[in-house]
């Protein structure tokens, strides 16, 4: 008797599309070169507004379905007005969102049904660095911890493997764990 194994998990990720894109872009690697963009404008104090609207990919400019805006500021303990999340908190948000998306995609590909995925993210920082109080202290995070609570139709080991594989394929994890050349210029 032959039985056809139906894919049963549905995490809302279109894995077939992603795998198809991978195959297509391996043949046409120019299309895989993306440029992500944001704009940022100062308002007052340490507050600024950022917008994300367009990006470049698949050989063309692409537009998001709507414009996303983000308000960033610093908390009152920094004598700021706290009108938005602190920029470093955006970094934590970026990391967690990226890893969680990865968990869902990998789970779908491995036919694992997710019931709930929750993460808490912490980044330790010695602010003497940004205050210039100690030249030995770096500005950024010393350590970042991400802790997942995952309820899925899978063994503990399979869940651990999802999270590990998600890190392996995560863009933000890579950005944070590896150096990147950054060029900041000013128009004259």
């Amino acid at each position: 008797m032959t039985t056809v194994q139906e894919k049963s998990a549905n995490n809302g990720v279109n894995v077939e599309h992603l795998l198809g894109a991978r195959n297509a872009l391996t043949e046409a690697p120019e299309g895989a070169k993306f440029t992500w963009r944001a704009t940022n404008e100062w308002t007052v104090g340490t507050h600024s507004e950022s917008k994300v609207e367009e990006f470049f990919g698949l050989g063309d400019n692409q537009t998001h379905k709507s414009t996303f805006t983000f308000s960033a500021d610093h908390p009152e303990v920094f004598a700021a007005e706290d009108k938005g999340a602190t920029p470093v908190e955006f970094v934590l948000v970026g990391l967690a969102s990226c890893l969680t998306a990865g968990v869902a995609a990998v789970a779908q590909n491995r036919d694992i049904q997710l019931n709930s995925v929750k993460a808490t993210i912490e980044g330790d920082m010695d602010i003497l660095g940004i205050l210039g109080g100690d030249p030995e202290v770096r500005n950024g995070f010393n350590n970042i911890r991400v802790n997942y609570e995952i309820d899925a139709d899978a063994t503990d080991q399979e869940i651990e493997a999802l999270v590990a594989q998600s890190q392996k394929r995560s863009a933000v994890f890579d950005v944070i764990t590896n150096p990147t050349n950054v060029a900041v210029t000013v128009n004259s």
Partner: protein
Amino acid sequence: MPGSVNRLPTVVIGAGHAGLAVSHLLTERGIDHVVLERGEIANTWRHERWDSLRLLTPNWQARLPGFAYEGDDPDGFMTMPEVVDFIHRYARWVDAPVETHTAVDSVRSEDGRYVVASNGSNGLTWETRSVVIASGGFNRPKTPDVAAELPPDVESVTAFDYKRPDLLRDGGVLVVGASATGIQLAEEIQRSGRPVTVAVGEHVRMPRTYRGRDIQWWLDKIGRLDERYDEVDDLVRARHVPSPQLVGTPERRTVDLNSLTSQGVGLVGRISAINEGTAYFSGSLRNVCSLADLKQIRLLDLVDEWATENGMDAEVSAPERYPDTVVEDDPSLSLDLTDGSIRTVLWATGYQPDYSWLDIPVLDRKGEIRHDGGVVTDSPGLYRIGLNFLRRRKSSFIHGAEDDAIDITEHLARYLDSLSVRTD
């Protein structure tokens, strides 16, 4: 005769184990051919590996078409001189038509034939209908771009050039890479009194023996080694998977990151940059270790399932699980290469084939040959053997050459038949 042109149905390039296996099967089929060898038989094994290297596969696994290991140490691992001797004996047994010291300068395609030129303007030229490239997958060391940024005071050595620890400078050594090569060299260099730090990227962890049997025995039994290239989910991944952390020693020791750290070796993440004399390492060390730990557990689970299903549980020792890789809380993210603590950087970052002589446009943008299980479909009559996962997971092992050579010579014979040029 120098300058003359020889006509033959087939030319095999390389007299290593794979080329000789192909030669034997061609002879059995009555296909006239020559095997061109740039140096001596088994040249790579003889000249291009480090002194302590032994095969990663046990002796009982050493076999080539019609030929097998017959010594008295089936569980042992051959040293390089023993491998060279094994391949030499095979060449004699096969009576292979090998032309040694015949370096191929170019292979080009001309009116449905291949023209193979050797040894410069005074060398021989062959005109042939088919070419089997068996020149090895490990001809040149591969180093990452960051290698170019190394400060001049630090000596840069590749695994290709490395022979033994006492030829290195005294002082600290950064070994880049933690696959079979990296862990083996890290262990012996640390033992020589030179403090070693290993930069660890993605790796494959495996115990040398499991439940009393060699891991290769289990891999063979569970069918892992025979997995075919047209059956795996992700062939690109399968062809680039790092070589497992294995070493062949008389004691059948397991060497892994835990054994290295207990020896005093330091671990850092994958090298990601060298900037103004400082090397920077990825913060992903913990994850690459847990990926490898989890994969090892999945492999051992498969082995245990197989043992139970096949009634082996009473014959072998009890299942075992090994401690997770120990990673310190805050592994170093950078290392000053100018303060004298690191005198040598050893690149154990892989090898790549040399196709500089191949004048046929069959390489992809990464410089790898495009082929379908060894059949170079863009250039009929051209074949490749002896690459990672060419047709099966075992393709890169000596014993893996047998099945691949059978398939490829069968395809080649059919191709020649279609041209009706068995004897040209």
